[in-house]
């Protein structure tokens, strides 16, 4: 709105407009270049796509301290035994817990979000680490659930196997990672 005499309104709209522009550029600059929200979704062919049930198979084939006829039973054999005799449930739980602790964990690091929200390190670790959960169902009913789930957490890397029990039925065994604030790259690393 310039005329011969100059624009008297110029200082009133120019500086706020430029400030608004700069703030917009800084905001979107942080979004695109720092937080990288615009990252191409097709960028990485995820390890998760090539995932199989190897972790669960290894857990089920692992030998336990429980012996029968002088032979150490595997986890899958102990599940079958525990489904008949509930006294073995505690031992089965401790053996599985021992193995779940050995499965790969997500490495906790500090992110921009942590800095902004000022999350204490101990809380960050609990939230971000994720927990491996093993669920066993027999006759469509829950038989054993090992591991802690977190509220509002998502499940990743799910693996499912059916194993035969000595009474002729099948037990459904499911293993998955339960995590609240895990990044896709971290999940991919342990897939």
């Amino acid at each position, binding site marked *: 709105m*310039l005329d011969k005499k100059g624009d008297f309104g110029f200082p009133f709209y120019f500086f706020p407009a430029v400030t608004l522009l700069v703030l917009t550029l800084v905001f979107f600059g942080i979004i695109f270049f720092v937080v990288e929200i615009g990252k*191409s979704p*097709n960028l990485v*062919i995820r390890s998760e796509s090539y995932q199989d049930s190897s972790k669960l198979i290894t857990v089920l084939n692992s030998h336990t301290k429980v012996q029968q006829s002088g032979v150490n039973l595997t986890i899958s054999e102990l599940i079958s035994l525990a489904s008949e005799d509930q006294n073995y449930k505690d031992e089965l739980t401790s053996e599985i817990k021992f193995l779940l602790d050995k499965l790969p964990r997500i490495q906790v690091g500090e992110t921009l979000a942590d800095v902004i929200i000022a999350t204490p390190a101990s809380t960050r670790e609990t939230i971000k680490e994720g927990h491996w959960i093993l669920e066993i169902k027999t006759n469509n009913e829950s038989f054993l659930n090992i591991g802690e789930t977190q509220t509002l957490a998502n499940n990743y890397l799910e693996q499912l196997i059916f194993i035969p029990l000595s009474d002729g039925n099948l037990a459904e065994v499911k293993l998955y990672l339960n995590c609240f604030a895990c990044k896709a790259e971290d999940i991919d690393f342990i897939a």
Partner: protein
Amino acid sequence: MYKMNKKAISIVTQWIVHLVFLMMVIAIFLGVILKIQDNRLHNLRVEAREFAFTRDMLLATSNQISYNYNIDNNISIQTNNERCLVQAKYKNQQGVPVTFFCSKNNLAQLQESAQENNIRLVKT
């Protein structure tokens, strides 16, 4: 006839100038979006890697296996068996192909035969 005076022309001209600049920014933005949607180089890079990884996983089995790998109509894939180098390029374009190394296994054979829209991989 209605005639515009100098002041009206001045105001209209300024609005037109504003619109022109706005259109320039919008045109750049739309052009960039179109380019992103058709990222031809990226598609070639992904195709070369997917094919190399498929080959790698077929060699992981101990049994005989055959697999039909589907590819885009426009893309051709060739493998240099000596170096195990996968080369992907667009069929109707000249130029340097996108390459990616696959893994060699001296103890197993993987045969490739290219068909119309797919490549048949057979592990013996």
